[in-house]
């Protein structure tokens, strides 16, 4: 097949889908404000624009989007940590969900970093709600938020000495044999 054709073919329906148009608009804004090189892995799973960036830029980006007068991402819906142990050097991640309530556009931003250096700038200076969300991420994944006013455990007991949502801690004791299921391989 002609490579030009195959590139052009999916574009025709793209222009008609309002969600794709909207996401293209948000992406153009992101590129305009912060540069194209800042974002990698642009995806749209189930219509929600997802971009990956670096932790060095995350604070600027979320601050810039909060200030932005065009789309007005004023609302931090949620944030959560994630752990991919097999991604060497990028084992831990933070995922932010932003929402523009005026235009009803959602945006998901991901950052990944090493588990040996899990340091991320805090968002508490931008969003009061980030306080407990970051404490939760610290509690579960051990992400250190620099500049957080009170980074202590929130849901688990204070003298816990590990971060239980990391994949290295299985839910059940892996050495137990009475629960091995020989037929279904778990």
């Amino acid at each position, binding site marked *: 097949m002609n490579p030009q054709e195959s590139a052009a073919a999916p574009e025709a329906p793209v222009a008609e889908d309002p969600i794709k148009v909207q996401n293209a608009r948000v992406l153009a804004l992101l590129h305009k404000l912060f540069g194209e090189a800042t974002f990698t892995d642009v995806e749209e*799973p*189930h219509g*929600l624009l*997802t971009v990956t960036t670096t932790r060095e830029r995350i604070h600027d980006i979320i601050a810039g989007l909060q200030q932005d007068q065009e789309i007005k991402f*004023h*609302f*931090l*819906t*949620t944030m*959560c940590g*994630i752990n991919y142990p097999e991604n060497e050097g990028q084992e831990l991640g933070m*995922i932010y*969900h932003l929402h523009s*309530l005026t235009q*009803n556009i*959602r945006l*998901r931003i991901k950052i990944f970093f090493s588990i040996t250096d899990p340091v991320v700038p805090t968002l508490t200076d931008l*969003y*009061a*709600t980030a*306080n*407990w*969300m970051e404490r*939760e991420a610290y509690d*579960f994944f051990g992400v250190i938020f620099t500049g957080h006013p009170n980074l202590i*455990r*929130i*849901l*688990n*007991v*204070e003298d816990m000495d590990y971060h*239980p*949502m990391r994949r290295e801690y299985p*839910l*059940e004791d892996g050495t137990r044999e009475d629960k091995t299921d020989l037929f*279904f391989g778990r």
Partner: protein
Amino acid sequence: MAVNDTLEGTHKIHEEAAAQRHGQLMPLLNDFSQELTTLNLGPTHPATHGIFQNILQMDGERIVSGVPTIGYIHRAFEKIAERRPFYQITPLTDRMNYCSSPINNMGWHMTVEKLLGVTVPKRAQYMRVIMMELARIADHLICNSILGVDTGAFTGFLYVFQEREKIYEIYEEVCGSRLTTNMGRVGGMERDFSPVALQKLRDWLKTFPAVMKEFESMFNRNRIFMDRVVNVGPISAEKALNYGFTGPNLRAAGVDYDVRAMNPYSSYEDFEFDIPVGTNGDTYDRFIVRNEEIWQSLRIIKQALENLPEGPYHADAPHYYLPAKQEVYKNMEALIYHFKIIMGEIDAPVGEVYHSVEGGNGELGFYLISDGGRTPYRLHFRRPCFIYYQAYPEMAVGTTLSDAIVILSSMNVIAGELDA
């Protein structure tokens, strides 16, 4: 002593205490030279309606600072969910906001359906709407009547609890259980509404409005009640948004954000309803907004019941929807699918999906990442209580202890949702 002096004094005490305590559990400062008292409110205080603790610094009756401690009923749902097939996660969602379990269940089912690409038939969507709105009414009834109890009006509570009991009877007819409902399935409802359920629902729709009117007439313009709640614990719209408020608490502050209207799910676009908003986000506004939402929910239920479409009550998704039990004994395919679903042998597609519903307390979000296995790779619950409860110290500071109790109950903090 001026209030400002006291506040500065308290900050100083806190800083000194933080320097001294080196990770000890909590400051226990009764500094009588400053005339401040440390008061431990909770974790199991009858006035806090749930297990959470607040360490308050009091200057006489005034609160000068508060430090909430949460996590007393943390059950690690996000971790447990990483080991469970999707249908086994539904009972976990029950136990988050246990005052409106069906909304949590449906929200979770819809998240999975979005991931799987399953479209639910219209009838099932309308049935879900009816159950979700019943749950919202039950949730708001509890919140508002408990607020009455905390201001000294016990009668309203007993009065509407009878109505909540009737709602639970409808749940019982629909799914078999009352509080932690585990209602519906991925792909629809587990059974059709029985004639008894429909009859109970219709009867309740006839009797409830009169009760609600009477409840409102007891409170809405009651001088004693208004003196207790007007201008107590106000929060501005900007601050509420900054704190991530959603649901009735945000709408009381004057922001008309409602997931049902902004991102309609389960056919909410078919129904006509208003979104009540308050003006200054105080306890009275929160109370009135919840009352009005009960009326709007009734409107939605009536519309859904009148226009309840005929047709199947679940999607044709044999890989995910459990077959009827009678079929399992007689039909080979049903037996195979039953076995595969129950044993968790069906892999979900790879993908990530965020879906949110309007829970009793606001935007209840499910962020599901699937790596193609039988269980979620990661499941994160956006729990509205957890997010807005952190504003509580700010709202309570400067008020009296009795006001702080009223603010807490008007925010409708549910311990299960707070701690997950």
